[in-house]
């Protein structure tokens, strides 16, 4: 095996053909994963530029960089791009596409051509939306709340909705592809109880992608109909109910948060096992927790509407259900921590990211309980407390996991090692920058600074300056991996098949893998994460 892996001239999925056509028309799941990686990196930095601009604006209490309308369009651009064109596709479409067939011992996903169609739909929706956001702009916020979005906003709402709508199909097809792949293409002996936890979390994610995305599609469709025909489905003046929109929107968008975090949990499980050299403590519980999060996640959307005119009884039920999500989430955190206990821990870059993930996810999760309780939510609703809470989950945790995964599987993706020193430095810088950016926002929110304004009261300035300073560090932290990972493509040392000595079928084939993934389909005879000798 190792002699094959060291042969840099071996045929693999990267060197088999270099033409543009061989990439743009490829039905290979690995190449499609790379296409997604390039596209979402582009969107990430586009959305990031908007964030840099409004963080600069918030450096001072007065308006000095942009007008109120421009500010509204900036945070909407940031939200729309980051949610639908970076976070939702991030881990599933890049790492999931690349790794799911490799991890279950398959040669492809179930529907390779549909997979390519998904990428084209994603790009079509993404570029369309981006052009709209740049040329016209939307000022509704990424949540498109009615009746503002349906009756009052003069910006390009319908066009933006159309772009998001198209991209929804990409989500649905990707989820569908993963579910069938995991059900039907597992290698002989790869029982459900032997699946890596990365697969379990992607299975749970796919269920949400398939069942929640269509509700968003129809909800956005109704706004478009309302704007075009002047009907009043969500307009109280015409008998409609704007709260119904909030229910529909969050029926998708709350589960969508789990689309963003569950794959990150899967990545973290893989990394923790590899760098403690232990089987994940309570494997079954961690696997089932993914499904529990996906299922309960469908029942908690009402906690976004505590102050929106929902009945007190409904609010109490939604609050209780929201607390229930904390149980499987905590099961995961406790089990990762228990895995660390007496493990042979090494602090390579992916492990730093995974530990950062646990740290930030815990803070984000615990503050989630604050906002899920009825009374506190009334106080912190629509403040920076909420902004800080969900950025800890969606940016802190998810992006940490994404970068951790990119580093961990970089040898497999590219066939090269990244520079370890730079990797660790960037991981620490991102962790520090992130906390400096968002921790002050908890305080700001608790003190009452409302979200979505470009001016604020004088007393909030110190914390805002800290936040902006953190954002600049974070920006450098995000640019570093882009630079050294690209650099490593030419100069990194050649990766062997299994540079981390980790378990898992993806490490049993070459780095990068051959076009057909495995020369022979492997036969699985043992559980996931079997490390010998098992640490005491």
């Amino acid at each position, binding site marked *: 095996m190792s002699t094959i892996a060291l042969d840099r001239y071996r045929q693999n999925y990267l060197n088999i053909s270099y033409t543009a056509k061989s990439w743009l028309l490829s039905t290979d799941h690995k190449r499609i994963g790379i296409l997604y990686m390039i596209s979402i990196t582009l969107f990430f930095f586009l959305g990031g530029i908007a964030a840099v601009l409004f963080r600069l604006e918030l450096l001072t209490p007065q308006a000095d960089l942009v007008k109120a309308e421009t500010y509204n369009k900036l945070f909407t651009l940031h939200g729309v791009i980051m949610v639908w064109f970076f976070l939702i596709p991030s881990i599933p479409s890049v790492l999931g596409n690349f790794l799911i067939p490799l991890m279950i011992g398959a*040669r492809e996903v179930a529907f390779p051509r549909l997979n390519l169609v998904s990428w084209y739909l994603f790009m079509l929706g993404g570029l369309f939306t981006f052009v709209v956001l740049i040329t016209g702009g939307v000022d509704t916020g990424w949540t498109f709340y009615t009746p503002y979005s349906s009756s009052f906003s003069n910006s390009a709402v319908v066009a933006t909705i159309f772009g998001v709508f198209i991209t929804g199909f990409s989500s649905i097809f990707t*989820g*569908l*592809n993963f579910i069938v792949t995991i059900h039907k293409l597992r290698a002989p002996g790869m029982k459900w109880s032997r699946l890596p936890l990365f697969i379990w979390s992607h299975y749970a994610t796919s269920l949400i992608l398939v069942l929640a995305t269509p509700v968003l599609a129809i909800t956005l469709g109704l706004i478009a109909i309302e704007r075009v*025909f*002047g009907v009043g489905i969500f307009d109280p003046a015409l*008998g*409609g109910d704007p709260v119904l929109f909030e229910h529909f929107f969050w029926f998708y968008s709350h589960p969508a948060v789990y689309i963003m975090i569950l794959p990150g949990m899967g990545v973290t499980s893989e990394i923790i096992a590899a760098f403690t050299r232990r089987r994940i403590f309570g494997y079954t519980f961690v696997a089932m927790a993914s499904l529990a999060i996906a299922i309960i996640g469908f029942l908690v959307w009402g906690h976004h509407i505590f102050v929106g005119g929902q009945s007190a009884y409904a609010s109490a039920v939604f609050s209780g259900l929201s607390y229930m999500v904390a149980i499987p989430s905590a099961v995961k955190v406790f089990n990762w921590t228990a895995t660390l206990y007496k493990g042979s821990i090494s602090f390579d870059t992916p492990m730093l990211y995974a530990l950062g993930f646990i740290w930030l996810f815990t803070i984000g999760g615990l503050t989630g309980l604050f906002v899920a309780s009825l009374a506190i939510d009334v106080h912190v609703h629509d403040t920076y407390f909420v902004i800080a809470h969900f950025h800890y989950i969606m940016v802190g945790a998810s992006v940490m996991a994404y970068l951790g995964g990119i580093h961990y599987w970089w040898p497999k993706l590219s066939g090269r090692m990244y520079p370890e020193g730079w990797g660790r430095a960037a991981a620490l810088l991102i962790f520090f920058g992130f906390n400096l950016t968002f921790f002050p926002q908890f305080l700001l929110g608790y003190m009452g600074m409302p979200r979505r304004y470009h001016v604020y009261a004088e007393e909030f300035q110190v914390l805002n300056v800290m936040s902006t300073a953190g954002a600049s560090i974070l920006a450098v932290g995000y640019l570093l991996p882009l630079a050294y990972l690209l650099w490593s493509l030419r100069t990194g040392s050649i990766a062997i098949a299994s540079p981390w000595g980790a378990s898992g079928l993806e490490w049993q084939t070459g780095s990068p893998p051959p076009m057909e993934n495995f020369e022979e389909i492997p036969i699985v005879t043992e559980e996931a994460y079997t490390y010998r000798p098992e640490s005491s």
Partner: protein
Amino acid sequence: MAEARAPTLDRPELPELDQESISLGMWIFLASEVMFFGALFAAYIIYRNAYPQVFAEASRHLNVWIGGVNTGLLLTSSLTVALAVNAAQLGKRKLLIAFLLLTIVLGLIFLGLKGLEYSQEFEENLFPGRNFIYPGPEPEKARLFFSLYFTMTGLHALHMLAGLLTFSIIVLLAWRKKITQENYISVELAGLFWHFVDIVWIFLFPLLYLIGRT
């Protein structure tokens, strides 16, 4: 090793998916479709609960005869699709083409009648656009009913168009003898989709047409 394989992107050894996997994919897609229409049904139920009298009154402006005939047509077309799938399984090519053509004709009559119904409603100014005029009480709320009616039946009609297009392609393929007993799965998938579209109508018809006529 590398020498054993010509470096090409065509990979004939891709997993030959069994038919079970392909239909699993279709069922998942249909689950997604259920959620898609489900949201609309939820909106309808909520507003009907809020304004029961207005919705009942507005419902009487729909042409129940066309709706009824269309229900019959669509149910019959589900039968002809089932027979077409059976014919494909047995490899009876001409029978397959005949049943599919029959289905297409039934579907087209449905859409024709639906178009006629829409044009009547346009003439009575019931389309909830800018020229909406409603003779009964509480026109704004009635307008909600018609908004939902046009959205739901319109989306249903779009789904029918997609189904009919698929059937036409299958007829063309069958004509060229590309559909065999071994790959009849495409007929079955299109059939599943058609039955789904049919079931949506089974819910739409009583909710929109019959509910105010007790």
